[in-house]
């Protein structure tokens, strides 16, 4: 057995049905799912309680193709289901491909009990096992007769949660408090929250504010925070802020912020805000481009995506990527549509925290991700963040670093 990346800090877990498969009566689905959970309670302290609110640890969903995560299903056959390791949000959730023919045994379709029991193994913190006899073996093997948890899986689960000795004490459940921190590298420094970065309607302090968007346009970095933006030369010196509307002619007056921006190879500039986008030629909206923008669904982004967090060109393949929450898309060479087989999970970009505030390729071709007051430099060849990150954004902008050292000197 191989442990996954996280475990639950308690053993009394909750589950909830988001929907049911049309392949069998609901009562039968419920029974199979409950039986699949019971597989993991034999000789372990784990208990599962069904709840009807949205805070359940394990959410059970039947869905086809794209279903609001970075792992769209592929139709009948091949991928049957997937589940997320323990954690907040989607952590612990189990998704089943409803293009499969779900059945109560292995001869008349795909055995829901077996697949569900396997997925719940992931939801509890187990990875795939190399042993073909194990329940956590990645390929579906089918099973006839009465199912019992194989020894390898029992060893795995008891290794994570112990055996069913009832005098073990576990911490009480605290809402939203789990060991798992998605994609956050160990040793992340703790910084104080920025103190009112925006004083009234004035420009915020770019050294101490969350970045909305940034990109390189014709060798200059354009940094967007709220209704303001800054232009930075190669020395990354922060100069005077300018109001977005006083430079980018054609954006709606009530636009509160830019979520993402990138420059296309034809030098047109694409802005994202909410579920709309705008295309600019220099600092003017393209002629006949609607002032209210166009919907991002025109790029084939699903309609349930309400915001693009970041857009960046990746120097490794010169393609543009769009990020929203824990999903990302690669755009085609013309930047007209997102490519087939996307969205994918942001876990591909190892160490990058989600959701990101912004990302861009700097003048040296390095990809940098921003979240909160930190930034992460990405190591393309190893597909992970560079060691030594995150660092504070005030260290990235030269002016901030100088201001910071001045302030420190004054304080001293």
């Amino acid at each position, binding site marked *: 057995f191989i442990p996954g990346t996280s475990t639950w800090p308690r053993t009394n877990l909750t589950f909830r049905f988001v929907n049911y498969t049309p392949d069998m009566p609901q009562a039968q689905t419920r029974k199979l799912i409950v039986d699949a959970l019971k597989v993991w309670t034999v000789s372990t302290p784990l208990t599962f309680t069904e709840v009807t609110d949205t805070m359940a640890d394990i959410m059970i969903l039947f869905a086809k193709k794209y279903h609001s995560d970075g792992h769209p299903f592929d139709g009948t056959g091949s991928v*049957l289901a997937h589940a997320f390791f323990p954690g907040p949000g989607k952590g612990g959730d189990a998704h089943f491909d409803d293009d499969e023919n779900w059945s109560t045994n292995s001869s008349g379709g795909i055995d829901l009990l077996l697949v569900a029991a396997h997925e719940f193994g992931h939801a509890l913190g187990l990875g795939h096992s190399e042993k073909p006899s194990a329940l956590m073996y990645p390929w579906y093997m089918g099973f006839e007769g009465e199912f019992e948890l194989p020894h390898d899986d029992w060893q795995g689960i008891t290794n994570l949660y112990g055996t069913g000795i009832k005098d073990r004490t576990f911490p009480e459940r605290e809402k939203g408090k789990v060991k798992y921190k998605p994609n956050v590298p160990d040793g992340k420094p703790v910084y104080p929250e920025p103190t009112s970065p925006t004083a009234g309607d004035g420009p915020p302090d770019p050294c101490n504010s969350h970045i909305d968007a940034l990109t390189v346009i014709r060798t200059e970095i354009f940094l967007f925070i709220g209704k303001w933006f800054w232009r930075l030369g190669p020395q990354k010196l922060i100069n005077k802020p300018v109001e977005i509307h006083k430079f980018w002619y054609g954006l709606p007056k009530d636009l509160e912020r830019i979520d993402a921006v990138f420059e296309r190879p034809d030098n047109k500039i694409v802005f994202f805000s909410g579920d709309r986008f705008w295309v600019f030629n220099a600092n003017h909206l393209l002629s006949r481009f609607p002032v209210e923008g166009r919907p991002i669904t025109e790029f084939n982004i699903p309609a349930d995506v309400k915001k693009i967090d970041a857009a960046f060109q990746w120097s490794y393949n010169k393609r543009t990527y769009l990020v929203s929450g824990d999903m990302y898309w690669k755009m085609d060479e013309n930047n007209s549509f997102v490519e087939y087989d996307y969205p994918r999970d942001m876990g591909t970009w190892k160490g990058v925290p989600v959701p990101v505030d912004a990302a861009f390729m700097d003048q040296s071709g390095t990809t940098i991700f921003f979240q909160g007051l930190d930034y992460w430099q990405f190591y393309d060849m190893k597909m992970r963040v560079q060691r030594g990150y995150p660092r504070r954004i005030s260290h990235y902008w030269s002016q901030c670093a100088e201001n910071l050292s001045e302030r420190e000197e004054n304080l001293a």
Partner: protein
Amino acid sequence: ARPASRTERKYRKLQSDTVKYLAQFGYLSGPSQETQNLRSKEDLVRAIKSLQRAGGLPETGVPDSRTEALMKKPRCGNMDDFAQTGIDHFSRKKR
């Protein structure tokens, strides 16, 4: 240039499907996961062997018919966490 024969086209598609499968389930790491390109042929051979080992097949290192059949088998969509560690574990190391 001579147009690719049907067999060549089929082989190229199989190779591209194999790379996609290996990347999707964690047998290929690094940029190949995103670009579907390979840094070296050795990486591909090593990844195919690792998949074959996990699937209980002879380790030929090429996407043969048994490997093709394995890739079509129904399975869980999560990555095979042992895929990368397996490579290090089984490969020979210089003392």
